């Protein structure tokens, strides 16, 4: 995921995220109260919510095949 943060004049910060680097056509935009620090603090939460709410767009992780324990 890639992101961009823009600080606004009204004490808010806008966050834009994109999952194109993962081959997923999903972009998200939101705003937080505060500046860069608040935006960076909220960013992983926003990312997790997008992955959860759009889980059908993300491929399931492959389960490892069976084998002998070392």
């Amino acid at each position: 995921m890639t992101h961009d943060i823009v600080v606004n004049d009204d004490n808010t910060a806008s966050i834009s995220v994109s999952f194109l680097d993962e081959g997923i056509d999903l972009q998200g935009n939101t705003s937080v109260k505060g500046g860069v620090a608040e935006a960076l603090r909220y960013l992983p939460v926003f990312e997790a919510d997008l992955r959860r709410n759009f889980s059908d767009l993300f491929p399931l992780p492959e389960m490892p095949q069976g084998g002998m324990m070392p």
Partner: protein
Amino acid sequence: MFANYIAGGIISVKGDIRDVVTGIKTVTATAAEIFAGATAKVNRKKLILKNEDPVLRFRIGLSTVTQQTGFPVEPGAIIELDIDHSVAVPIYAISEGANLNVAVMEI
């Protein structure tokens, strides 16, 4: 903006259900815009929020909302906001404590 506040009850939503967007948002101690999808729904007419936490309360308002100001949404409560669809007004939410989950519906 007009709000119906229902705690744990049944709500009746009047609107075009074909355009409904739903999702779960994590509300944190950082006030952030709240919406259902990847961005706020364009021309939304209703915003319905359900506090899915059993103990924590969150507050909503404009971008100036704090943990002490804004309208409180009690654990398990549902709040319905009628919004002027011609004016895009971001609604912000902030937890009074730890992170909590909010079910969101936009029509």
